[in-house]
């Protein structure tokens, strides 16, 4: 009921073209910004609370739990609480600031982790970009021709069931045989390719759904304008696809990071966070806190990747509006 009454008020104000018509909706939009900011602050507080809760649980269990963990029958359902299995959080943080090895010119652990994370981020970003291009290309193809959708979509779904670990060394060995002119296939490209293989899937599905999302009324409107395929694509289908594309791109970014880390491990690529994870885990018996460095690095990496896409969402915020009446 209330929104119907609001309609009339706004409409009447528009008709009279008085100063009231300007001020009434304007205050409305300012009021709409304020809760958005409050939500942002509230969201960060909850996020912080979540991190604190995990910290409290970790240290709480370490303090109170049995040293050998909780074992039921043959299964250890909760880990050992020794310093080896569960280092103190402050040990992990302190370790981050210490040099990575005992060599004189060794960088602090956090710097090594950050460099590795940046390397992986670069590779994942390359993979994500390829995934975006390929994913949107597939979606365009399938949107244009129903036949392509019937023919391609099942294969695209099946492609994701291939186990990545099995697949990574094959890509690397194929890649090592690629040599076109002065271009030579680099090992990091295999990793990026595998990252793109994971990234393109959600993007394809999201983009297809988005490109197909315009209402019939909008499609017919463009038809009455005698608008061609490209004009309709640029002015209608892509803008309408944005609300579907943004979560797909975020999912694609997360997938690209996972793909890059796993591919680094399984192709044995040096320099990235994946390699560091394995390497430092091997040293955990002597230096348990060190192994957590790259784990934190991987978490930050994922957050940065997803956050960058969220930034894209802020830029494209007008495309997330709906036609519904405020």
């Amino acid at each position, binding site marked *: 009921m209330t929104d*119907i009454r*609001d*309609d*009339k008020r*706004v*409409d009447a104000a*528009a*008709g009279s*073209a008085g100063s009231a*018509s*300007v001020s009434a*909706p304007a205050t*409305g*939009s300012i009021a709409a910004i304020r809760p958005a900011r409050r939500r942002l602050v509230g969201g960060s507080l909850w996020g912080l609370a979540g991190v604190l809760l995990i910290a409290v649980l970790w240290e709480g269990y370490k303090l109170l739990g049995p040293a050998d963990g909780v074992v039921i029958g043959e299964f250890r359902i909760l880990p050992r609480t020794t310093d080896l299995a569960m280092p103190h959080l402050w040990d992990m943080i302190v370790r981050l600031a210490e040099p990575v090895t005992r060599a004189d010119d060794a960088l602090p652990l956090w710097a090594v982790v950050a460099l590795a994370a940046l390397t992986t981020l670069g590779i994942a970003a390359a993979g994500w970009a390829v995934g975006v291009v390929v994913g949107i290309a597939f979606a365009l193809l399938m949107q244009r021709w129903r036949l392509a959708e019937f023919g391609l979509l099942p294969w695209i779904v099946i492609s994701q069931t291939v186990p990545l670990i099995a697949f990574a060394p094959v890509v690397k060995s194929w890649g090592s045989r690629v040599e076109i002119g002065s271009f030579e296939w680099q090992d990091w490209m295999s990793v990026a390719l595998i990252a793109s293989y994971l990234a393109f899937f959600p993007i394809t599905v999201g983009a297809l759904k988005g490109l197909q999302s315009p*209402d019939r*009324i*909008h499609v*017919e*409107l*463009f*038809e*009455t*304008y*005698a*608008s061609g395929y490209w*004009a309709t694509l640029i*002015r*209608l289908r892509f*803008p309408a696809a*944005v609300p579907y594309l943004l979560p797909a791109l975020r999912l694609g970014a997360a997938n690209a990071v996972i793909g890059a880390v796993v591919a680094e491990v399984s192709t044995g690529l040096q320099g990235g966070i994946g390699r560091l994870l394995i390497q430092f885990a091997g040293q955990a018996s002597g230096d348990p806190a060190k192994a957590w460095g790259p784990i934190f690095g991987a978490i930050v990496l994922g957050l940065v990747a997803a956050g960058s896409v969220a930034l894209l969402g802020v830029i494209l915020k*007008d*495309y*997330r*509006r*709906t*036609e*519904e*009446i*405020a």
Partner: protein
Amino acid sequence: MSDHTPNPPRAHEPMDAAGLADVAAVEVRGVDKYFETASGTVHALEAIDLNIVPGEFVSLIGPSGCGKSTLMRLIADLDTPSAGELTVFGKTATQARLDQDYGIAFQQAGLLPWRTVAANVALPLEIHGMASAARQSRVTELLEMVGLSEFADRFPDQLSGGMQQRVAIARSLAEQPRLLLMDEPFGALDEMTREKMQTDLVRIAADTGAAVIFVTHSIPEAVFLSDRVVVMSPRPGRISQIVPMRLGDAAGREDRTDELREASAFFAMVTEVREALHGGAADLLGAESRISRGAETR
């Protein structure tokens, strides 16, 4: 009622007939339309004959399923007739669409939610490559016409339903079409807004001199707006009668003010259209009760 004849241009002149009267705005001759559906063929339109002269305001009215929207879609070239001939300004419907001879507005405003009011109105101009400066001045002009100048930078979700519909009408007028197709554009609005929009539309139609084909469910709306009311009946969709509006002194567009709504000539025409509709509606009721009886005996 298959004996209706194609209506010649009516006796009292349209607004803008000079020089254009020789080419009909819309000419429909013997048009049939069938739809193939899962449950068989639906005969949506049968033997439709209709002539609309430039500047004329014609309403299509009838119960649901009488094919009035289908007829409008055929004229807009959003569907093609199964049989018969249909021309718009002497051209095929497809050519008229390609030439942008008509503007169209639907029951829903159909604004693009990510575009501001001004950008929505500019959309057809943008698609057809009008230069930016000319586009802006045209948009300003159009928004003034529908009284939404201060809302140019708003987004559709910040407007009421009536305002959205006015933006859609401004958009349909963007390219100064000589023909305006409107499919129940005020159907979703409340009565107050609706009457205001009708008054606005009469004024806009008079200003632009465009012929209007207006699909509606509402008898008073059809009477208030139209020069002629085309009454249709369903199953199959046919024109059962074409009622010319004899509104006395208020026949001119500029005379169609709110006072007309209370004039006796207005009520007389409402009654006439209602009676014309009831002829068709009685058929419909008969058909439906036959169907339900059939279902019971099975």
